[in-house]
């Protein structure tokens, strides 16, 4: 029993790191993604091209590779090593997820009929008023299911941080294999499943909360 607790406590600590990567990535990538989506929808052709290219590169290269790039390139190329492994992981995750989120935002925004914006205009509303009071909630309603999907993927992608020795839950479990224990690795699934279960319930609640209107 004491071995089980030892493993559980160690995994919980790793899971704390997993949750930190998840939380920080979410908080930073959600707004950054919105900005990137505005870039990809820009009326200025060069701006649009730049943002589309960024999204293409980020979505076109494995996240694992991006983590390596963020971790090694500042040191090797510019001679300024990145301050911490954890920070490198966060930067890579934020950029990667912001690009995926931006495409979800774009799809959500472009799905709103233009008549909504025009109605706002003829009622004398400013661009900001139209975005915040007319468009935003309709976009949120539309993007909850795809966002839920992407955010659940993020929970499990955090495991990639171990490639630069960030000690998240899988990394912790791997250390036990040196003591000829494989079960802690499988045990990590319980943590992920509980976390994703909670998220699934939260997304279900959010969806229900916005079911009072139809778009």
């Amino acid at each position: 029993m004491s071995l089980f607790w030892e493993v559980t406590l160690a995994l919980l600590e790793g899971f704390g790191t997993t949750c930190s990567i998840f939380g920080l990535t979410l908080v930073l990538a959600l707004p950054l993604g919105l900005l990137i989506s505005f870039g990809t929808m820009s009326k200025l052709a060069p701006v649009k091209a730049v943002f589309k290219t960024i999204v293409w590169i980020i979505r076109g290269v494995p996240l694992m590779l991006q983590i390596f790039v963020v971790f090694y390139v500042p040191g090797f190329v510019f001679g300024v090593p990145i301050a911490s492994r954890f920070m490198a992981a966060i930067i890579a995750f934020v950029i990667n997820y912001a690009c995926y989120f931006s495409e979800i935002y774009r799809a959500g925004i472009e799905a709103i009929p233009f008549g909504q914006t025009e109605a706002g205009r003829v009622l004398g509303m400013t661009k900001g008023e139209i975005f915040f009071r007319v468009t935003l909630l309709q976009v949120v309603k539309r993007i909850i299911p795809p966002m839920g999907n992407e955010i659940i993927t993020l929970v499990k992608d955090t495991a990639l941080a171990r490639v630069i020795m960030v000690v998240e839950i899988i990394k912790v479990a791997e250390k036990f294999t040196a003591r000829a224990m494989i079960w802690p690795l499988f045990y990590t699934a319980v943590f992920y499943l509980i976390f994703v279960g909670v998220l699934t319930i939260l997304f279900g609640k959010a969806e229900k909360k916005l079911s009072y209107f139809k778009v």
Partner: protein
Amino acid sequence: MAFLEVKNIQKSFGETKVLRGIDFTMERGEVVAIIGSSGGGKTTFLRCLNFLETPNGGTITVDGDEIFNAAVTYTDAETREKRLRFGLVFQSFNLFPQYTARENIAMPLYLRRAEALSRETGVRRLPRAQKHELQEAARAAADDLLKNVGLAEKAGLYPHQLSGGQCQRVAIARALALSPDILCFDEPTSALDPELTGEVLRVIRDLRRDGHTMIIVTHEMEFARSVADHVVFMAGGIIEEEGTPAEIFDHPTSEALRAFLHKETEF
């Protein structure tokens, strides 16, 4: 000088000339119906009046105040202020789905009143209590407007809970809330089932009785004949013919109008 004077309005989309110089005047309290085939420029003309399209040429003057001149570039703020001279009711209603009928009317009204008060008092951020007061006043005004279009009991319902005819009546009330000088209708009954057009047309008739100045783009010839003081026939981006309903419907002179009326009454 007429209440609304439109001079030589032109609008092209790329190579396509949609409006080829519209000259148009109307008086306060007058009701004008615009008829014509699809693609004749009727909707584009209304959209130009409401600043949803920027004409390539021409001027628009309301009550002696030149609100648009193609030679001048306007800021967003100027455009916003000037377009409030006009109201527009869309074919597809364009109600905001996340707001109740009452809030659809009250929200834009509150925003404009809050802006006006801010400007008057020089206070950028109104105190919470004052905002609340303005919101309540806007809701009360919305309820009154809903009563006028026969929807007092529907105030708390969302657009998806209303019929098309009811949605359009809410949209009319919403446009009226901002007290436009001229209220425009872009085929207000075209998206409705036939049995629902009557309730919307009735509301427009009531508005006429109350002296509202209106421009109505419509396919309902009988309605145009009975509600309008003046009928304009548009074809090929110009005003082909205009006159009293009797002149237009009973004594059309141009070949295009005759052909159009023949087609419309064929069924």
